[in-house]
């Protein structure tokens, strides 16, 4: 399931509900991304705003989810991504995968996060004491995602 929303989500409740009652699930892997209160250079971050491309976001996330289900035997998947203004400590993204086997759960969750970081049309602007600044894409994110092309 894909959810793109401005509202906060309850990570605990999502995990409790996820894949619940499915006896074929042996492992659930979940990743929760949060707004850190500092940037790479140590500057304090009070808040950020996530801009996105409505329509394309949902389309790309659905495509990524379909690809994950093609690659691994998954019983369930969940992607929640927020947009709008977020304060330090706020939840940004949640990705969860459920499978009979822990390998498939771990790998597919990582795959979804890596692709989401490089393909889902979101852009962060950080609000810092030194002013607003668009976050630049990281080379490392591209190479993380590129790993999966070999598979």
């Amino acid at each position, binding site marked *: 399931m894909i959810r793109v929303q401005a509202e906060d989500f309850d990570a605990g409740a999502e995990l409790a509900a996820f894949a619940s009652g499915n006896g074929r699930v042996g492992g659930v892997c979940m990743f929760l991304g949060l707004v850190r209160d500092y940037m790479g250079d140590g500057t304090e971050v009070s808040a950020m705003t996530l801009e996105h491309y409505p329509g394309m976001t949902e389309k790309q996330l659905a495509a990524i989810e379909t690809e994950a289900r093609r690659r691994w035997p998954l019983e369930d998947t969940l992607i929640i991504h927020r947009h709008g203004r977020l304060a330090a400590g706020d939840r940004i993204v949640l990705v969860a995968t459920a499978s009979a086997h822990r390998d498939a759960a771990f790998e597919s969750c990582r795959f979804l996060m890596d692709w989401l*970081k490089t393909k889902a049309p979101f852009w962060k602007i950080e609000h810092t004491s030194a002013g607003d600044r668009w976050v630049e894409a990281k080379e490392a994110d591209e190479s993380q995602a590129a790993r999966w092309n070999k598979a």
Partner: protein
Amino acid sequence: MKVLYFAWLRTKAGVGEEEVAPPAEVTTVGALVEWLKGRDPALAEAFADMRLIRVAVNQDYAGLDHCVGTGDEVAFFPPVTGG
């Protein structure tokens, strides 16, 4: 044709979205970029190095040689930074 700009490209363009009617010979993303650059010095600057820009046609990633035409939605944006 609808053209969209996101993140710092939106700031440069001064608008998030515009309806444009390029001449008939503009049939690719690349030609559209050149035509947009000719209309707006700020966009000419923003589009100076297209390696820094990502393009989507009808909400799918596309290259500069991708076809575009009337009714298409073409978006320009920097590399994404979500997640």
